[in-house]
């Protein structure tokens, strides 16, 4: 019934507007105007609006930059991330400059050259010199950007240091599991056909390298100042391991292993003391308290944490597939790791029987 009324209301409103416009049009044609003709007055008004819009656009974009700065990611907590941030800012300055210049030209010309009776446009069809300039200058600027960009890219994606610590991140709908390589720094073999309820990663108990592997859920710890080589696998669909605070990302693709390595530089404890982070967390906590109060519940204050997000659409709970990353001092990290038994220490090898292979429907 309500739906019906809503439809009726929509139809009646449309009819009403229709008649209103008709009335205006009739009135205007009675006065002898051609309503569709663009007059000099129209040109002048639109030209002024163009100029006004130019100021609003520049002010708005600049305001965005200033207003949202405190909400952005804090300083990069990885070595290569600092370089990425520098490169980003370098690009951004050039981009914003070009943006401002071109928009000013566009809207200023739109304002200045509005149509007036008796004025004639200047017949200019091309200008080789001008065109050469604006082909060559962007080419040079882009060449510089490419050189800087590729230098960083090559450094970031070069082979990991042979002494780096190996950690496997295993993605599935909708959580992450980490596997530490243990004392030998080598991951044991795994096979998806070996997956069982207790052997989430499909670890192969006949693989000697895997005997000391440690499997961890929910939270991983990594030591500060040491290069970590992450190896990514996926069990079901494509996921993407995204560590925004470390400026690191790599897709997890079923059927293959992908890699990304970085060196964390700031411990979680130190990051929590960073003035930018302190301020940001204060705002977040205020907002959370406010919301809780409105909803009549109590809310504990949260602390800053590094986080691992899934950044490739992977199903309905894609938005809630997270893992906490803790960067420890070397000593704290060792202490944490000591408390974690190897996978095969708690579950003796008994699960090598492959699971039944499913019929494909």
């Amino acid at each position: 019934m309500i739906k019906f009324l809503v439809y009726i209301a929509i139809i009646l409103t449309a009819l009403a507007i229709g008649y209103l416009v008709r009335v205006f049009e009739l009135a205007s044609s009675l006065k002898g105007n051609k309503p569709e003709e663009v007059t000099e007055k129209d040109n002048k008004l639109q030209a002024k609006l163009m100029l006004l819009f130019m100021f609003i656009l520049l002010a708005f974009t600049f305001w965005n930059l200033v207003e949202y700065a405190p909400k952005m990611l804090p300083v990069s907590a990885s070595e290569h991330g600092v370089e990425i941030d520098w490169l980003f800012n370098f690009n951004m300055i050039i981009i914003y400059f070009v943006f401002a210049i071109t928009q000013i030209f566009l809207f200023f010309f739109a304002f200045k050259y509005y149509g007036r009776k008796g004025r004639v446009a200047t017949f200019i069809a091309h200008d080789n010199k001008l065109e050469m300039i604006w082909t060559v200058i962007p080419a040079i600027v882009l060449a510089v950007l490419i050189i800087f960009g590729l230098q960083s890219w090559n450094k970031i994606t070069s082979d990991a240091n042979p002494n780096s610590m190996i950690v496997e991140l295993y993605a599935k709908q909708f959580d992450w599991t980490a596997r530490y390589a243990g004392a030998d720094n080598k991951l044991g073999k795994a096979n998806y056909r070996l997956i069982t309820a207790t052997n989430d990663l499909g670890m192969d108990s006949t693989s000697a390298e895997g005997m000391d592997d440690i499997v961890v859920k929910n939270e991983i710890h990594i030591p500060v100042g040491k290069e970590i080589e992450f190896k990514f696998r996926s069990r079901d669909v494509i996921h993407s391991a995204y560590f925004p605070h470390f400026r690191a990302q790599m897709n997890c693709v079923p059927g293959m292993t992908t890699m990304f390595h970085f060196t964390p530089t700031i411990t979680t404890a130190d990051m929590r003391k960073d003035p930018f982070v302190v301020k940001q967390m204060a705002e977040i906590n205020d907002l959370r308290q406010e919301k809780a109060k409105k909803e009549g519940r109590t809310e504990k204050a949260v602390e800053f944490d590094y986080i691992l997000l899934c950044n490739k659409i992977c199903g309905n709970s894609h938005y809630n597939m997270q893992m906490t990353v803790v960067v420890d001092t070397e000593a704290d990290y060792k202490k944490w790791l000591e408390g974690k038994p190897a996978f095969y220490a708690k579950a003796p090898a008994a699960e090598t029987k492959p699971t039944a292979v499913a019929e494909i429907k």
Partner: protein
Amino acid sequence: MSDNHGHHESHAHDSHGQHDEHHHEESFVSKYIFSMDHKTISRQFLITAVIMAFLAMMMSFLFRLQLAWPGEKFAIINFLLGDKWGKDGILDPGMYMALVTIHGTVMVFMVLTGGLSGTFSNLLIPYQIGARDMASGFLNMLSYWFFFLSSVIMLAAFFIETGPASGGWTVYPPLSALPQAMDGSKLGMTFWLVSMSLFIVSSLLGGLNYIVTVLNLRTKGMSMTRLPLTIWAFFVTAILGVLSFPVLLSAALLLIFDRSFGTSFYLSDIYIGGQALEQTGGSPILYEHLFWFLGHPEVYIIILPALGLTSEIISVNSRKPIFGYRAMIGSIMAIGFLSFIVWGHHMYMTGMNPFLGSVFVFTTLLIAIPSAVKAFNYITTLWKGNIRYTPAMLFAIGLVSTFISGGLTGIILADSALDINVHDTYFVVAHFHIVMGVSAILGMCAGVYHWFPKMFLRHMNKKLGYIHFWGTFISAYGVFFPMHFLGLAGVPRRYYSNSAFPMFDNLVDINVFITSFAILAALVQIVFLFNFFYSMFRGPKSEQNPWGANTLEWTTPMAHTHGNWPGALPTVHRWPYDYSKPGKDQDFVPQTVPLAEGEIDGGGH
């Protein structure tokens, strides 16, 4: 439609010989439904696209409500989606994904590919090159009906139990290949694949027709270097489509095989729903390569026609030749060529070889050069012009503005090192919406306002047009500019809610800001919808050449007749941009006017 009252009378008086067989009275069905006339087909495409665009916008409205106020109850969500997907007015996460997916698919393919090219290539190619119709009217008709069928199937998926496809508009397998992975990968995904396959057929039928028509049916004197830039844009677009859409069809076919026949093109080593699947040896990366081999040319298939329309509209309304006509053609061709060798920039983070990534960085940044040339040429066309602000002109200038803004952030995303941190975040969403979504929509609107008098023989209301432009333009920046900052704060795209962890709690106000502008944008489109349908029947009647334009479509009579020109086809004597040429008594010289003695064609004087 009232504009066709005089239709068959003018037929009877048709003087040119080759159309004698058309003297029989046409039935409603052959005139308006299964029509083979390019003008009718163009209007069919336009009206379908306008409706599809409106529906896709409604979808975005629903998920924007969820993003700004996650978990809050909205009667309209329950009203539109019912208890199954909008229980108590809260959007279901699966439905959220479906809305995002279908919004993207409909906008990219149905509106900005089928709708934009279908409308304006069909309308303008025969008109502006001086042809009686498309090379094959029958294929042209088929093209529309495949498109229509494809649109219906895409929307029909909302009415099946498991809902439409919901793996994002790129539908990457294995997510889209495995019905166990999500509801949207069940029957809905089959609908998506069938719909897209039909769409590709439609696009190929249309594209081949456009290419053949441009190459073979140009009237006397219409050399390639006298073609309006609109035609150049449609021509290159059609070539891109013909070369790249078959690759998408192959990607879709392999996906159909993987889904239904147990092959493993894209699947390998998967354990899902408590079972290890048998498929092994395939690679989802293969799909990504195939998809983006279409996907990247696709964004140019979207933007080039919009740029073509803009070139024409800016020149006509500045009363000035388009600046650098040959450079514009060169840019269109360069963009067309380069668009085939940049697809890998969508895949820097897939585990693709980093060296291959470097190559794509290089080619991608190259494509910025012809794009920059185009932008500079538009700006210079305005310089020293005598600008007439029709609503179309406003939209065209708006396109130049957003094309620059969105293009510039592309420099960040093209740079593989910088892409690491913004890949798949809202930064990407902001970038492509501005550079191809908003720009192409603005270009399409410009085209609609400008050629409405040709399509429906009436004018749209000017004042409502102004309101439509400013509302759309302001809200486009209001929606998409702040989105960059969500991305830079690390928010991934396609998240149902950002409240699952505290990290993004301070970004709620940005999302509320964005949604407010999105609602404004939606309201303003109602003004357009009204203006569009109202003016179609009741708008003030147009003159033959209301904008004082040079191109051939404005030399056709003010009735839609078969064969476009009642007598012989017009002969072309000059390029299309002789506006405000010194020594002429009016500020435009139609292409049909012979060159005066000693007059130089193509911009010299």
